[in-house]
């Protein structure tokens, strides 16, 4: 017998066994759904379009910066704009998001300066922003780890009595982003269980972008990922991840449920990673160009543009947005090159809350003396003596 994956049910047929929630078709037509509706007007859809458009431009600029050697690596997000913007815009200020390393669009709508996202990919930073300031945790590279963090943060909200008051300014929720690959990790399944057991106000938002580097989703799951929620005792929804209106509507409802004290939800946003896993990856080794093309027809941005054009949005809106995107690109290019270079000496003081331990201080001084031996003798060495040690 061979070890091959049995037949899986992964189809994105809206009328299939586990239907996708869709509110805007790839052709740009609004459709209704019995359980979910997008409540905003066309102005708010234009706002969403702006976010989608800027997110894609940011991604393209970052890829260009990587090709020019300004970044060591980049994790492209093309194709996942609707999933990220739709869910990210459903968050309130007091909510908190736990991202993977690809949530560039969520970062954008949380108000993180997109230039700061470049720091870890440039190799000058391991983080780049203050999580508390924007309600947006640091990027997580270890697959799935952040889903447990999100659950714990949500447990903290419950302990702090920040849910269930029917108060839009007080009640808060958490969203945990992860991918289809992560659903194989123990940590993610533990997070689903903990969230269920403690009725934590957390929304698990899985962007099923079909690939974990080269492994397609049928290597991670035998059925729709959303289906797993029921096994843990809560609700799962499968949404067209390229439909920003549906992603927004579904996430809004799940977040509100969490804020109301009704516990966790799982959302599977069925989407597609149009680009490589990272700029180090070569997707032509594991998928056909034709497959990519079928998803190009379901582009998350084009469908909104079609809708807005049919609604009579003036060309000026699109022109202005293009100019804004140009400015964003310029900002990224300029800021990337001026991101402060790390100083190894300073990192010794960064390991512990109380600063460098005597051992670390000794190593820091060894490093500084060694570094200084290559520099002019009239430059200050910065060597400091440990308190209480004889030099």
């Amino acid at each position, binding site marked *: 017998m061979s070890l091959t994956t049995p037949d899986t049910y992964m189809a994105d047929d809206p009328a299939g066994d586990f239907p996708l929630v869709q509110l805007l078709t790839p052709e740009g037509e609004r459709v209704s759904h019995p359980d979910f509706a997008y409540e905003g007007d066309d102005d708010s859809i234009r706002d969403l379009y702006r976010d989608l458009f800027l997110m894609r431009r940011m991604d393209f600029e970052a890829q260009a910066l990587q090709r020019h050697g300004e970044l060591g690596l980049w994790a492209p997000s093309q194709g996942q704009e609707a999933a990220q913007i739709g869910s990210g815009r459903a968050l309130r200020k007091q909510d908190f998001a736990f991202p993977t390393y690809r949530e560039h669009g969520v970062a954008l709508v949380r108000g993180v300066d997109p230039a700061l996202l470049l720091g870890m990919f440039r190799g000058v930073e*391991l983080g780049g922003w203050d999580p508390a300031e924007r309600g947006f945790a640091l990027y997580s590279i270890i697959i799935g780890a952040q889903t447990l963090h999100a659950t714990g943060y949500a447990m903290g909200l419950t302990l702090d009595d920040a849910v269930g008051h029917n108060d839009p300014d007080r009640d808060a929720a958490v969203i945990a982003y992860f991918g289809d690959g992560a659903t194989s990790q123990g940590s993610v399944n533990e997070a689903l269980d903990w969230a269920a057991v403690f009725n934590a106000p957390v929304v698990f938002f899985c962007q099923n972008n079909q690939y974990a580097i*080269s492994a397609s989703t049928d290597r991670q799951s035998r059925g729709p990922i959303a289906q797993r929620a029921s096994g843990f005792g809560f609700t799962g929804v499968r949404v067209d991840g390229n439909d920003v209106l549906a992603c927004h509507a579904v996430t809004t409802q799940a977040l509100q449920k969490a804020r109301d004290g009704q516990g966790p939800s799982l959302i599977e946003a069925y989407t597609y990673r149009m680009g490589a896993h990272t700029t180090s990856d070569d997707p032509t080794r594991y998928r056909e160009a034709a497959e990519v093309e079928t998803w190009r027809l379901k582009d998350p941005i084009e469908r909104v543009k079609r809708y807005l054009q049919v609604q009579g949005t003036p060309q000026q809106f699109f022109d202005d947005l293009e100019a804004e995107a140009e400015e964003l690109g310029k900002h990224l290019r300029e800021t990337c090159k001026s991101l402060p270079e790390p100083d190894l000496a300073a990192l010794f003081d960064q390991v512990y809350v109380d600063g460098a331990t005597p051992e670390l201080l000794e190593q820091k001084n060894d490093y500084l003396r060694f570094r200084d031996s290559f520099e002019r003798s009239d430059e200050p060495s910065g060597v400091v003596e440990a308190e209480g040690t004889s030099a």
Partner: protein
Amino acid sequence: MTKMPLSKGLNAGLRAAMEADDKVMIMGEDVGRLGGVFRVTDGLQKDFGESRVIDAPLSEQGILGTAVGLAMRGYRPVLEIQFDGFVYPAYDQIVNQVAKLHFRSQGKVKMPIVIRIPFGGGIGAVEHHSESPEAQFALTAGLKVVSCSNANDAYWMIQQAIASDDPIVFMEPKRRYWDQGEVDLDGEPYPLLKSRVLSEGSDATLIAYGPMVKTCLESAAAAADDGVSLEVIDLRTLSPLDLDPVYESVRKTGRAVVVHEAAQTLGLGAELAARITETCFYHLEAPVQRVTGYDLPYPPSRVEEEFLPGLDRVLDAVDRSLEY
């Protein structure tokens, strides 16, 4: 002799091991169709099929835990952990299960598992992709830990590791994957659990493994230009340690410098310094020197060359030893 990069040496060694024993199987993330992110398993799934080269679900604990069961069933799993920092979710299975089952069962259960881990920095990577966790396995009773430094050892050591009935953590120097070397495909392999003098010298002994071996060989060449003669020893095996060649060398030179990328505190260098001091005390002309990564989380890659031991830091330590 055939010239090939270190990664290709591993690939050829894996292929030879799979041809020699049909119980040998490979599991890991992206090892099949993609051939691994470093292409170490390139072409193996095509030739040996999806049942012997398995693209794992994205779960390191799953890779290790299922390997225990497969080994109990008579298979010889060769596991790829994609990057050093990704091994920790599997650490529980490695330390609590893989390392202990032979001991617990009084030898009735064997764990012929090879855990391949590309380790170390120097490739400009993001976080969790440049770590050196070898000491955390070397200190675990029940595991053997080896590290290759060149293409020929890569080819032979991986085969020897797979043939071992003990579990072996196989540390691969990822920044040396592309380094070309001569591989003696028909030769007699050097024993797996033996250290080896790679370059003879008389003034001091450099002791390294994995990626730092090349750094030490380059340091020895540079020192030779200044009339300083350095002996370079490639440890090859980190657990068990094979220190007779080290003792013999240190008795000759009177000076020892240990070099590794892993942090200084409680790293391999600490154990080596202790054992050299215990065994060669009256021959030592200077304390054993350590050139290591600093006791920091791995820093952002733009400063990794300052963080990692390099030729200048090695020679600086040699000077300290000579001047002592």
